[in-house]
């Protein structure tokens, strides 16, 4: 050692002891006042970051799930709406059919009633006419061919006449 340029007489034990002591003291002080707290903060940050990443991943997963659910829901509601519209249309069609049917039936019925009434009226008219024609023709005949006909001939004539009217 002495050859190497440090120079000196005797054993440099003091330097050795001092250097060793100072270095260990320095290391101890640094650990206690500087590096210890710093390492604590670094570790804390590491944990914090890891935590945040985990949290973010979880949130991302949740959001994904929610979106999937939403999409599913949307699809479902769209299908439901489609079904509702379809049903309504079918119902409307049915109702339309029913209304038409009812209207047709009503019309048929009215027609029937009218026909019957007409027939009845015709019958009545016929009866009234028959009576009136009879008396009228008697009146006319008696006026036109007074005395030329007997009562019997007259009746026969009238009946023939009426027959003719009925046939017509």
């Amino acid at each position: 050692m002495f050859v190497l340029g440090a120079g000196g007489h005797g054993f440099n034990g003091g330097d050795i002891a001092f250097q060793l002591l100072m270095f260990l003291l320095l290391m101890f002080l640094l650990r206690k006042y500087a590096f210890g707290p710093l390492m604590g903060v670094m570790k804390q940050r590491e944990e914090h970051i890891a935590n945040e990443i985990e949290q973010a991943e979880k949130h991302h997963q949740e959001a994904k799930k929610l979106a999937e659910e939403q999409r599913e829901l949307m699809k479902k509601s769209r299908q439901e709406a489609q079904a509702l519209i379809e049903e309504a249309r079918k119902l409307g069609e049915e109702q339309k059919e029913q209304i038409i049917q009812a209207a047709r039936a009503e019309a048929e019925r009215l027609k029937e009633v009218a026909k019957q009434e007409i027939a009845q009226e015709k019958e009545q008219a016929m009866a009234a006419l028959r009576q009136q024609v009879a008396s009228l023709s008697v009146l006319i005949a008696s006026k036109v061919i007074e005395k030329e006909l007997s009562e019997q001939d007259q009746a026969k004539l009238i009946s023939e006449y009426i027959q003719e009217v009925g046939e017509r």
Partner: protein
Amino acid sequence: MHHEAPLYELFGLTFNLSNVMMITVTSAIVFVIALLATRNLSMKPTGMQNFLEWVMDFVKGIIKSNMDWQTGGRFQVLGVTLIMYIFVANMLGLPFAVVINDELWWKSPTADPVITLTLATMVVGLSHYYGIKMKGLKGYAEGFVSPMPFLFPLKIIEEFANTLTLGLRLYGNIFAGEILLGLLAGSLATGFAGTVVAIIPTIVWQAFSIFVGAIQAFIFTMLTMVYMSHKVSHDH
């Protein structure tokens, strides 16, 4: 270019007062830097805290390149202290040297082999201590006869060679730098012309010395971790 050292005798031990002073100054500077950097610790680091965290991560990288973090984590404080202490020590001798009555007072403490060899011996001693502590006496002893028993003498020599090279490499680099700086400043810069001529090489050499000082601090820490891992790792 050779100055006397201010020696002082106490309890039968010789103290080089220049070394004592420079060791104290270096330790104080390192401590103040570290203390200032960690005054306002926060989760979002700023300024000095960033710098110190970078140093810590840098040392963490050195350790991780030698052993797994599980075993190496406990050496981080040692590594950071070493690298900061040696770097500051290397830098201290660069701007000037103070000589009083032909006694050299201000210099890099690492320009003295006693200092560097003390550090090296401490590191190797620590590696032995942790070797025994973590692998047990048996595992530690097996390290000397593996992979082949006849390597035992070489292993013993290796321990001393490691210590010597670790200390002397640092000392040699820094001492050489200071010698050349001293030559440039003291011998060449005599008179006006000499001073002008000396300016450029002095600047260049100081820049190079900064580089060397940083590199040596890194190498010392790196080799510390290499020797540590040889002693404490199982798969070597």
